[in-house]
């Protein structure tokens, strides 16, 4: 039985009740990794000895009567972009060969103090610049439900590790959708908090203004537990009911290009919410059509600046696709970067406006199910879209604006591939968004699985 049939909350209850030990839970995860990782390639490094030592210490501490909270003794995976002291942070790149982190990233230190067990570092699209995980110095990650498909990216190893029962949850980063895209493709809950809410110290950057840290996990309750830990402060959240929720539905640009099965699952979600008493109203982001150019000019300019030195000195150590995209960023003119920053302010105001008087915005998370490895384009009807464009299409807006956003599983295709629905909330009110997401999950979770 895969280890992750339990959520973190369920494991925490079992650990507290002494129904099992952290050592047992960790051993189960490590056994699953040994069995499945050769096929899935989710992990770049497995830290078996350290994880077991941490687990034994967590058990001993609990025996002494010290309980650190719901993450005490819980085995997690970490995207290999976070510094974990005394281990390399590869960012899935040969450029990083020889690196050894001297201290923990701030969020890793917070997780360590909360009692989390670190199973290992997960694979990613090199330097988090991509949405399929195919460009990695360590090879592509494969989707646990179909090895010919990508689990999404860039936190693809993280998502695969959770879906496949190798870890109870994972911590990833999201600059254009890198938590929400793989979470949607793998049927997980993925949370991108508000911009600036979680420190990015000790996280290898992609974009200095759009990087976010957050969890990939199995439930909204688990997302809340992990958010409390990485934020370093616990919050008491007020549970919400679906009845009376005021939700703005984003259509137009956001539903114009969807795989038919994704579109049907999204409409069924809307119908279920209405039937349960939520108030749904169509809302607009007038300049949604400008999202892609605004995003591109910010992310590539910022990434190119971060990589300029190594593009000159270590060009051949990058994977070809990532190198060429970073080089593309070096040609963006300052005038156009500043235009994009102006576009960001416009989009922030429009998303704020769409949220005024509402609890959340609702839209699909990912326009297509998990894409086939090696595909350059995805065909929807008669339209062919590059994989990168179609996968970023519905998530990148909230990296530009900084609003918190979460994806929840809302259905599956006839082939059994997961489909996600996305909720976005008011800036700096991630806890309110989690309350709304908990209510929605209680409805669509039952519908999907029951």
């Amino acid at each position, binding site marked *: 039985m895969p280890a992750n049939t339990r959520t973190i909350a369920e494991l925490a209850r079992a650990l507290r009740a002494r129904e099992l030990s952290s050592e047992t839970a960790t051993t189960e995860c490590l056994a699953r990794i040994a069995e499945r990782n050769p096929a899935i390639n989710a992990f770049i490094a497995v830290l078996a000895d350290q994880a077991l030592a941490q687990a034994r210490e967590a058990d001993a501490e609990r025996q002494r009567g010290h309980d650190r909270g719901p993450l005490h003794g819980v085995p997690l995976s970490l995207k290999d972009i976070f510094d974990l002291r005394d281990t390399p942070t590869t960012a899935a790149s040969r450029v990083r060969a020889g690196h050894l982190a001297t201290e923990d990233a701030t969020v890793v230190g917070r997780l360590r103090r909360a009692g989390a067990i670190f199973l290992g570092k997960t694979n990613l699209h090199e330097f988090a610049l991509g949405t399929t995980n195919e460009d990695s110095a360590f090879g592509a990650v494969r989707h646990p439900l179909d090895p010919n498909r990508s689990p999404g990216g860039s936190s693809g190893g993280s998502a695969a590790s959770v879906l496949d029962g190798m870890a109870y949850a994972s911590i990833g980063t999201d600059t254009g959708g890198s938590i929400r895209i793989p979470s949607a493709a793998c049927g997980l809950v993925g949370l991108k908090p508000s911009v600036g809410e979680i420190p990015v110290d000790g996280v290898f950057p992609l974009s200095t203004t759009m990087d976010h840290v957050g969890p990939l996990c199995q439930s909204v309750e688990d997302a809340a537990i992990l958010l409390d830990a990485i934020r370093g402060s616990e919050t008491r959240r007020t549970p919400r009911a679906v009845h009376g929720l005021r939700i703005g539905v984003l259509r137009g640009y956001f539903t114009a290009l969807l795989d038919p099965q994704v579109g049907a699952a999204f409409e069924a979600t809307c119908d279920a919410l209405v039937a349960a008493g939520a108030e749904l109203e169509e809302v607009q982001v007038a300049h949604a059509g400008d999202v892609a150019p605004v995003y591109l000019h910010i992310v590539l300019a910022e990434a190119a600046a971060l990589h300029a030195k190594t593009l000159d000195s270590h060009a051949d150590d990058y994977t070809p696709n990532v190198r060429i995209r970073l080089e593309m960023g070096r040609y963006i003119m300052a005038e156009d970067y500043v*235009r994009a920053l102006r576009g960001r302010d416009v989009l922030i105001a429009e998303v704020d406006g769409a949220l005024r008087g509402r609890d959340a915005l609702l839209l699909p998370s990912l326009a297509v199910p998990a894409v086939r490895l090696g595909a350059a384009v995805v065909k929807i009807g008669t339209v062919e879209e590059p994989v990168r464009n179609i996968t970023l299409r519905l998530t990148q807006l909230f990296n530009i604006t900084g609003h918190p956003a979460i994806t929840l599983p809302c259905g599956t295709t006839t082939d059994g591939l997961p489909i996600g629905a996305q909720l976005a909330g008011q800036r700096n009110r991630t806890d309110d968004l989690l309350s709304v997401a908990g209510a929605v999950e209680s409805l669509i979770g039952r519908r999907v699985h029951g």
Partner: protein
Amino acid sequence: MTIKAWLDLAIQDAERRNLAALRPLLEALARSTSALRSADWNFDATGDSPRSSTPDAR
């Protein structure tokens, strides 16, 4: 600089650096830049001074 002039120079530079694979990406970037520059929210020096509707936006 116009987008056409920029694209010509960028392609020349990429070819000089043996980065021929950049050409289609630069052409895509040129289309994206064109969309960015034609957005109706771009600053117009003949109009009112810009105001931020969200002073606490970030």
